[in-house]
């Protein structure tokens, strides 16, 4: 269980901002600014954060759908960032992605059969008959019927489309699935169906998930460990129960307290953060959170705290937990 499937070290992605008539680079958006984590085989790592915190960019960088600026990604013992385009394509057979929008991520002109078969064609798996047989199997696996194969995406509901997206990701028998907000577009009753499906598939095929979402209760439900991102950095990462029971970073605390709980008798003390998230093109000096942090100290304004282990397996980037304090 403790074998690492994926390890990311100091991953950075800066997007250039171009301006002027000459299109010179006038600035950078630091979408990911030094993120390190690992995922063990068979586990689910959740990544949470608000919009613009870089969680989706992180997910896409792992597959090199977005080319990272700096840092190393080791997947299954191989260094991903130095692979050539052809090798990378091969590598993606083991890393698949499920997208947020089930309406935009399926080709409306293709039948479901074609959509699910396509990754197998790309990776030259099996004969045409074998592939078609597998498509039908996959449809059953994700809770659809094999007769759905001849239909088009628009004939399905949102939840069913997300199942098709999952079947497509499973087609090439990947080891890692990166799910980027897979249930955000779905209604509550459908969301729970898809979450249960993802859990069943994990048990059946021993899959590893990177689960990216903004909904904290969903992430807590599905993840073994959870990382919290803020403005391109990981601020806290630990086991999911620990994070929710004993959040260390002030941002995590505020984030958790902000979630409305579906229980009218549940009273919680809410930490309401003032202001908005600063722009990643001009992040504040020092700790990125100090502008909104209720516990900010002088040091927070000048020194960006390191992301380090405070308790066993509990990582946090905050000066409140400095050794010498």
């Amino acid at each position, binding site marked *: 269980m403790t074998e690492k499937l994926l390890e990311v070290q100091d991953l950075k992605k800066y997007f250039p901002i171009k301006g002027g008539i000459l299109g010179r680079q006038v600035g950078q958006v630091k979408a990911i600014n030094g993120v390190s984590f690992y995922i063990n085989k068979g586990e689910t790592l959740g990544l949470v954060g*608000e919009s613009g915190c870089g969680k989706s960019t992180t997910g896409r960088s792992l597959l090199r759908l977005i080319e990272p600026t700096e840092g190393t990604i080791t997947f299954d013992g191989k260094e991903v960032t130095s692979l050539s385009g052809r090798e990378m394509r091969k590598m993606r057979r083991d890393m698949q992605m499920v997208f947020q929008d089930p309406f935009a991520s399926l080709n409306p002109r293709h039948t479901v059969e074609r959509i699910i078969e396509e990754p197998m064609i790309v990776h030259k798996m099996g004969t045409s008959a074998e592939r078609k047989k597998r498509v039908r199997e996959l449809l059953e696996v994700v809770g659809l019927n094999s007769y759905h194969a001849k239909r088009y995406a628009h004939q399905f509901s949102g*939840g069913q489309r997300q199942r098709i997206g999952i079947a497509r990701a499973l087609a090439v028998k990947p080891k890692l699935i990166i799910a980027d907000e897979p249930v955000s577009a779905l209604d509550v009753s459908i969301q729970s169906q898809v979450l249960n499906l993802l859990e069943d598939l994990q048990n059946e095929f021993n899959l590893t998930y990177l689960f990216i979402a903004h909904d*904290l*209760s969903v992430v807590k439900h599905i993840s073994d460990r959870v990382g919290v991102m803020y403005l391109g950095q990981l601020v806290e990462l630990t086991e999911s129960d620990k994070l*929710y029971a004993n959040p260390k970073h002030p941002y995590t605390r505020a984030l958790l307290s902000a979630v409305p709980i579906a229980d*009218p008798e549940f009273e919680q003390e809410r930490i*309401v953060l003032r202001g908005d*998230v600063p722009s990643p093109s001009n992040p504040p000096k020092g700790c990125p959170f100090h502008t909104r942090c209720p516990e900010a100290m002088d040091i927070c304004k000048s020194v960006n705290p390191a992301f380090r282990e405070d308790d066993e397996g509990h990582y946090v980037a905050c000066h409140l937990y400095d050794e010498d304090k």
Partner: protein
Amino acid sequence: MGETILEVKGLQTHFFTDDGEIPAVNKVDFHVDKGEVLGIVGESGSGKSVTSLSVMGLVPKPPGKIVGGEINFKDENLVNASEKRMRQIRGNEIAMIFQEPMTSLNPVFTIGNQLIEAIRLHNKWDKKKAKARAVEILKLVGLPRAEELIDEYPHQLSGGMRQRVMIAMAMACDPEVLIADEPTTALDVTIQAQILELMKDLNKNRGTAIMLITHDLGVVAEMCQRVAVMYSGNIVEEGTVKQIFKEPKHPYTVGLIKSVPDMTSKRERLYSIPGSVQKPGSIKVGCPFAPRCEHAFDRCVSETPALLEAGDEGQKVSCWLHHD
């Protein structure tokens, strides 16, 4: 119970499309008391937004039309009100805020322009006085540097600030009822917390009644005193927040509450309601939830249940399990 300010009786809003008549809202009854927060919950396509648009007289016609029922606002039936009269009521007495703050603000006018327009439409004030009011109201909704803000354009603001501007605009004429249609759905949780706090303040300090439409059960539990649960164009259950969350009676409400992942307890397998929402109108006879209901029996398919009181203290449910 307080004095009722808005009462909806047997409201039917249908859409006439090429595929036939679609009953998006099918005989809906509810009321909003003075100064209370009523939550309307439901999944997409349950008719909750169309209900609120009907109250505002904003259902696009064609294809939509209110084909039956009454909307009584202070002894006046809004269904029969003229467009001129509706204009007076809208904004002045009943105001509305929408889900997407970017698309509800005009990008080519400044914040001040849009606010002052709304204020002067309802009050015969000069520009100076209206501008002063605009600044005052922006401060009320907690926006910093209100004096400068009124000369800025919507794109210069963040999502949370835009939603505050929308609320400011809605509150500009001190309405008695505020209809908020998914006001925080497009916002991040920390910003959502700010907006919910603001709406609570307005409700408490100014006594504005709020009709809050949302799919988020957490938001409902936190904000509302009473809740109506909608499914496929019908209200299936209505009661106080405590009744709905602690003693839900309708199998749909029960399922919906069980489907929400719980952050406070240990990880277990989630309950899920099988199947998906039917198109409104696809079920002509019987309970609209029957095809997905695990308790469904013969009567559920042959006869449509009415929303009737069940058990104690005003909890209403439309389900044959609870009626004779």
